[in-house]
């Protein structure tokens, strides 16, 4: 069966490796574009968040390319992600598109269901292929995130404007080609060195900004209008506080210890948010406070319009921002793709950070000389 997966940033590399290793033909949806968005917006519920709309667009485009099955994850609340697959199934049914949706629900929604779906995916090559596939996918995801982080480090220091992103694209293509763990590790090392080599080494440290918020909008550069790249070109070193590896580690491998993790995160929020609220809401608040203590210059919080967990985070973060004196830029993204307003806001924010840093240094200098 020809399978497809919805896009989420560069995750398709790992998903593709996993499914190919299990003996499936993979048809990836075309890279997210305005066409994807308008297809998704047309057929999705009106006020649902952007990730689901883009999912639907991805599905339709992949089906046009010949996909027969879709692999999607489920969930058990309270974030809406858990019910996406159900509604998407209905949407595709009403559109008359005949595809099979393979939904991987978490174990607490029924172990038997999960087992059936996994066995069906592993049918062509047996359950052993699942293990091999998972290992390769994990390594590939690790490599992808390593390179992306390297690019975030290099961008504000790059020798030639825009070269990092071009090299990163080529590197990711190489990672995608790799078909064994040994060759993957070698390629990853080489590519990382290639990216790091693009940096100028000047003593002036760029501004440091943490990127927090909803995972899909952080990872998918189409929805955030290349936020990392834009900030990088404005001379800001971006640290991503959310990653797929971390999500998988926390929500799948360490899921039995979830209550312990939540307790630790609640402690980190210093009483600003005292409960888990679904999605990445609690993580957003906790990491903002950590970053503020780690002397970051500012925070960019990004979320899709009507995202439930991040609305709570946003509400709490306005207080955090005032109390801890850390500037936070709240970006809410939806179907709009107007770049000018977005760019202006980013520039204004970076200006503010620069001025704040200068004032701070000035104050430090004056107090040093006893003026």
């Amino acid at each position, binding site marked *: 069966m020809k399978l497809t997966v919805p896009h989420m940033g560069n995750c398709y590399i790992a998903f593709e490796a996993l499914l190919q290793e299990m003996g499936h033909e993979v048809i990836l949806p075309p890279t997210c574009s305005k066409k994807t968005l308008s297809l998704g917006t047309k057929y999705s*519920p009106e006020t649902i968040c952007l990730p689901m709309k883009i999912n639907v667009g991805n599905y339709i485009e992949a089906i046009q390319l010949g996909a027969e099955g879709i692999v999607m994850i489920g969930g058990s609340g309270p974030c809406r992600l858990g019910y996406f697959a159900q509604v998407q199934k209905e949407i595709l049914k009403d559109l008359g598109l005949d595809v099979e949706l393979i939904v991987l629900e978490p174990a607490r929604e029924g172990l038997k269901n999960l087992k059936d779906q996994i066995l069906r995916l592993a049918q062509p090559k047996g359950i052993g292929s699942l293990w091999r596939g998972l290992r390769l996918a994990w390594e590939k995801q690790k490599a992808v995130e390593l390179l992306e982080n390297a690019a975030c480090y290099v961008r504000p220091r790059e020798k030639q404007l825009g070269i990092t992103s071009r090299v990163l694209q080529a590197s990711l293509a190489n990672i995608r080609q790799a078909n064994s763990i040994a060759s993957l590790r070698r390629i990853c090392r080489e590519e990382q060195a290639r990216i790091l080599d693009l940096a100028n080494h000047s003593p002036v440290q760029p501004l440091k900004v943490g990127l927090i918020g909803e995972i899909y909008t952080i990872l998918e550069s189409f929805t955030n209008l290349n936020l990392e790249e834009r900030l990088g070109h404005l001379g800001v070193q971006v640290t991503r506080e959310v990653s797929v590896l971390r999500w998988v580690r926390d929500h799948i491998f360490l899921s039995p210890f979830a209550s312990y993790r939540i307790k630790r995160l609640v402690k980190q929020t210093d009483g600003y948010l005292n409960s888990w*609220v679904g999605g990445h*809401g609690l993580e957003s608040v906790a990491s903002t406070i950590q970053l503020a203590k780690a002397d970051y210059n500012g925070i960019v919080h990004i979320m899709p319009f*009507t995202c439930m967990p991040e609305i709570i985070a946003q*509400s709490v973060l306005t*207080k*955090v921002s005032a109390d801890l004196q850390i500037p936070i830029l709240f970006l*809410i993204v939806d179907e709009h793709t107007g770049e000018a307003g977005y760019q202006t806001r980013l520039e204004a924010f970076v200006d503010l950070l620069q001025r704040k840093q200068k004032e701070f240094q000035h104050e430090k200098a004056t107090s040093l000389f006893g003026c």
Partner: protein
Amino acid sequence: MKIGIPRALYYYEHYPFWETYFHKLGFEIVLSRKTNKEIMDWGVFYAVDGACLPVKIYHGHVYDLVQKNVDYIFIPRIISVVQREYICPKFMGLPDMICSSVPNLPTVLVPVIDARRNGWKVFQAYFALGRKFASPAKVVQAYYRACKALQMKQNSPIISVKPNRLTLGILGHEYLIYDDYLTMGIVSRLKAGGYNLYTLDSFDSNLLKHFREPSFKRMFWTSGRKIINGTNYLKEQVDGFISLVAFSCGTDSLVCDLVERFCQRNQIPHLLLNLDEHTGQAGIFTRLEAFLDMLERRAVHEVNCSSHGELLHSL
């Protein structure tokens, strides 16, 4: 001691419980005023832009209580009221949202209501809350009485159905349906108009559990489950459904889409009214009247075969 309870969100479902409980503990209960323009303005001012209307209104109600000089404000963190289900993420973070945006708050009482595993944790939360003010025996008694009071409310009788009048199903959260200001009095107007109305709280909550649409995945939001199952249960008893939805309500964005598809497949008329801070009534009422006219005409003219074009000639 005066305790303030905001007249919004879960007030509409749990008030009998809270009233009895705090009364037995010896509190004087102060309610915020009914929602009005001023409260809505405060709410819109203090809440974040992205929040849904009921949550914004809640901010306004809390601020109203702040001005009434109460000693405590009761803002429970309601995670779950039914096993394995949630209410909505915003309910889980509500006390923190309030504490970080509404100024001059008195002491806030925040019990964590979490019935995901079992009801024992709910009792523990109320017990711990009550122990600050009264002896253990008194708290247990108050809790018991409060549970009884809630049961009395939940088993309120179903409205009698008048024959030759239209029957409508009103779908939506109780905190929206029963807030006359938010819904611009739609429900009370329909009642005054003599229509038979079914709301989702007119049934025993256990009844709705059995009317699950079998092809759907388990719904993990309590209100969403009620709406989906209620639609399925009422499909043969009503002439049409009216959904009242707050703009940018997270759960309803998916639930209403499913309801709409369900109604289309079963050929049941369905009117979706999206409510937000706008207070222009004319547009909403015109839509409502048009919908009711359509239902009445449908009862007279509709035959089982296609009526396309037929209606015009027969008139």
